[in-house]
């Protein structure tokens, strides 16, 4: 498996997108074939991967590996179908998605640009990005501690329910290390997902 730094952009891609232009883009760019195998990646992709997962990420998800191996659960099937359709119909697939870390909140935009007969060029660009809020523990407890003195965290997505029951929020601090008085529950979205998936399979 290669990190991609020494691999040239495949000719079919280079015929549409000048490689020098792609290499210098701030957006992360990955060329994949019709089956999702990574053929090439730019420097921004490698920098993002190293910053968020270390060099091991580039070994596991470098050139020659499957792009889809980095996607788990139902999202994997979703993107496989979306990319298959984009390639088959030669239509651009676009989507905004959250890609936050404990330190940074991010909204990214994905564009899958079809290259007929060769694959897709995937572009991930930043819509917005800012440091995660770091409220004091007491402020978090005031918002999330229920009347029984416990924090309810979804056991699937790990969002935390507000004491008002109105919302489930992503609380980065408690993803890494849950509150000492945490009861694990199920948020509304994961409840619907769990039951919907099971109902379809029975």
């Amino acid at each position, binding site marked *: 498996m290669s990190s991609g730094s020494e691999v040239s952009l495949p000719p079919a891609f280079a015929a549409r997108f000048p490689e020098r232009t792609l290499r210098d883009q701030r957006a992360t760019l990955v060329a994949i074939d019709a089956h999702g195998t990574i053929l090439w990646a730019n420097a921004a992709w490698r920098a993002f991967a190293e910053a968020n997962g270390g060099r091991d990420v580039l070994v596991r998800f470098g050139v020659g590996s499957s792009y889809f191996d980095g996607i788990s659960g139902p999202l994997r099937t979703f993107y496989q179908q979306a990319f298959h359709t984009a390639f088959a119909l030669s239509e651009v697939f676009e989507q905004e998605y959250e890609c936050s870390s404990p330190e940074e909140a991010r909204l990214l935009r994905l564009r899958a640009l079809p290259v007929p007969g060769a694959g897709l060029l995937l572009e991930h660009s930043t819509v917005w990005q800012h440091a995660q809020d770091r409220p004091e523990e007491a402020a978090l407890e005031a918002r999330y501690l229920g009347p*029984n003195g*416990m924090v309810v965290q979804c056991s699937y997505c790990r969002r935390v329910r507000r004491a008002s029951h109105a919302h489930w929020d992503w609380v980065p601090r408690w993803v890494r290390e849950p509150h000492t008085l*945490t009861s694990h529950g*199920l948020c509304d979205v994961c409840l619907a997902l*769990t039951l919907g998936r099971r109902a379809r399979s029975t």
Partner: protein
Amino acid sequence: MRAKVLIVDDDANTRHALRTLLELEGIAADTCPSSLEALHRLETGAYDVLLTDFVMPRMTGLELTEAARAAQPELRCYIISGQSRPPTCPDDVAWFPKPLDVDALLARIA
């Protein structure tokens, strides 16, 4: 004759999910939001299986299984939890981590 299950969890969505998942498999189930209410239900209902959360206010799921077994020793007890299994949990109490492996749970109950 299929087992009749009492589900105990302080989270309403989890109770709803577990009950629905069991009923999709043809397994009858009732639900309770607390351990104390569960002990009352166990006295009055004929249940084969107690399926309970671990971390709950006032009485944990493990304390509930101990109290329930004192009155009904043959009761099959399963605990579902996001916490790791404590060393004090008896071997004959099955422990299922959250997120739940639904197939594994159904295989044990059915």
